[in-house]
């Protein structure tokens, strides 16, 4: 591609380049600190966790000499007893117990109970005392789990996020069936996003075409109808859908009133996948219509009429002449809707019930309820890679600088 003279000047003289870079620098620094650094920090968290290693250094040191068969020696028990008591005193026991529990469920209560009761034990042998407190201390698996939880760097959370784990031999195997959920959720998120994108395209395309080829005054009015929902608060729109779709909501009332369904046959349209789907389509539709509209309004009307005057049927002239020219808009709108859909959180959380939850809701769950932050970070990391990939694709196909708002 040949450069225009201005670009050549830019390359030759350092002045304008430096000035441009200096203008961008403050925002770059700001985004770097307030946005990119937090993301990087989160990604680190998905593979790095020093809590157990820091709390039980001596125990882990002793376990290094252990071959992983049978039980470790008395020294490991003694070290652990001391460090558990210390962790309890330092108020770190909860954090250690939580992490151990994630490697092998059930170990949380083993740890808290042991630490509570060890206060009454004055002297060794510690192995006997600890096995007395809880039989789990006499099992090889407990110690293996302890050793695994003590690793500072681990791929465990990513494996977990893909419904995988390491077995006792160290090879990667699927999680037991009743623990597998994330792949299903990723799959569901993908399907819902594709479905919403397709639906938005299906209903958005005719509307965008109508607006693009209407007389200016009317086009402006119709455009406002698309823009009002675009600008309206997401929470307001979600509330509206609850009002409309709930069991005693406007739509069900109307259907009952019209005699289409009985009062006891009200349809469950919300707090399930239907609710998520409908509300998401509503929220994302403007993001499809607007790019389509801006591409379509640049297509001269004469082209299709010319095709038709040459004997093409309206369908042929649409399919052969019009549609190919709108493809950039279709690409831009679909990618944008898809990108926004796969990271969707608020609407499913409010109207999705338990069956309409997507992967973002699982991230929120691990952030706020189970507090498995490393797993949340790993799930977030996978989602982030998907979005980043789509974003790069968008840039290649559409060009980020061509992104327009409203």
């Amino acid at each position, binding site marked *: 591609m040949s450069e225009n003279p201005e670009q050549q000047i*830019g390359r030759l003289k350092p002045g*304008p380049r430096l000035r441009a870079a200096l203008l961008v620098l403050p*925002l*770059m620094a700001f985004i770097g600190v307030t946005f990119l650094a937090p993301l990087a920090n989160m990604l680190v968290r998905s593979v790095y966790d020093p809590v157990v290693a820091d709390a039980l250094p001596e125990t882990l040191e002793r376990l290094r000499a252990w071959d992983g068969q049978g039980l470790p020696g008395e020294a490991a028990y003694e070290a652990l007893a001391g460090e558990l008591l210390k962790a309890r005193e330092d108020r770190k026991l909860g954090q250690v117990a939580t992490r151990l529990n994630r490697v092998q469920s059930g170990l949380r209560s083993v740890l808290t109970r042991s630490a509570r009761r060890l206060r009454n034990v004055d002297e060794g042998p510690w192995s006997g005392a600890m096995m007395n407190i809880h039989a789990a201390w006499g099992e090889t698996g407990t110690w293996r789990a302890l050793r695994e939880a003590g690793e500072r760097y681990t791929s465990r959370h990513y494996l977990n996020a893909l419904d995988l784990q390491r077995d006792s031999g160290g090879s990667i195997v699927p999680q037991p069936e009743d623990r597998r959920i994330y792949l299903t959720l990723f799959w569901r998120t993908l399907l819902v996003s594709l479905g919403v994108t397709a639906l938005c395209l299906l209903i958005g395309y*005719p509307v965008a075409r109508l607006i693009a080829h209407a007389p200016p005054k009317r086009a402006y009015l119709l455009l406002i109808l698309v823009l*009002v929902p675009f600008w309206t608060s997401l929470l307001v729109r979600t509330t509206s859908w609850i009002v409309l779709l709930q069991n005693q909501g*406007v739509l069900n009332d109307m259907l009952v009133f019209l005699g289409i369904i009985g009062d006891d046959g009200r349809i469950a349209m919300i707090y399930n996948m239907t609710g998520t789907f409908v509300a998401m389509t509503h929220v994302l539709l403007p993001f499809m219509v607007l790019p389509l509209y801006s591409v379509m309004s640049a297509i001269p009307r004469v082209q299709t009429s010319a095709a038709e005057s040459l004997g093409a049927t309206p369908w042929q002239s649409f399919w052969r002449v019009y549609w190919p020219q709108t493809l950039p808009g279709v690409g831009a709108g679909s990618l944008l809707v898809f990108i926004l859909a796969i990271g969707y959180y608020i609407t499913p959380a409010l109207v999705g019930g338990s069956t309409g939850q997507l992967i973002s809701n699982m991230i929120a769950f691990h952030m706020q309820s189970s507090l498995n932050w490393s797993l949340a970070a790993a799930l977030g990391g996978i989602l982030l890679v998907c979005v980043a990939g789509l974003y790069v694709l968008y840039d290649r196909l559409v060009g980020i600088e061509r992104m*327009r708002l409203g």
Partner: protein
Amino acid sequence: MTTTEHGFWHIAYLGFCALVFAFLIAPILVIVPLSFNAEPYFTFTDGMLRFEADAWSLRWYRQIVEDEEWSRALVNSLVIGISATVLATALGTLAALGLSSPAMPGRRFATGLLISPMVTPVIISAAGMFFFYSNLGLAQTHIGLILAHAALGTPFVVITVTATLAGYDANLSRAAASMGAGPLRIFHRVQLPLIAPGVVSGAIFAFAASFDEVVVVLFMGGIEQRTIPRQMWSGIREEISPAILAVAVFLIVFAVLFLLTVEWLRRRNAR
């Protein structure tokens, strides 16, 4: 193909579009009359449908105006929104000026990075920010939320200002420079007036983004940083009452005002 057949398809097409427009607008419109419900229900009562005067009331509006929590939320939303907007607009406008210069090194990459807060799923941004800002002691502070919202708002400013600058004729700067104007003076006297509509639109977008943001507030805000959307969130999840509908009507009015301003600016700019 006969005209009647053509006419039929055309009418079907118009009918379909009408349905889609109804789908877009009806949910927003339905809230307005319901917010005047005299009963604590989310649906039209018989009295409302028969237009009986006592089935309609302003009680939910009175409730939100009198409720201290909602007014505190409004103040929080405004303080956080305005501060974040000022920050985002200043930084975003500067960056847009740089990005629009053909001389900008690595322009494509820089643009991609600066727009990324807009396309990153907000749950991921919020999660990352929660850890990072907590470590810095900025969680549960207004400053933390202002910084976070400013970061999420800057792409809007960058996009709108860059769009306005795309129509900016660089010869104007050159002409001004040849008459002896310094860069600051050129910016202030020549560029700023021309890009002002883009800057204001960007600011409105950034403000609206902050004014509607709930996930970051959910993760990072404490009781002192409850904003309007945060308050609505717990309203929807927990104690749902038509008072929320009254708030929603206020927000719809806000949205329409924002929309009309931005469109007005856009048309002014296009002229």
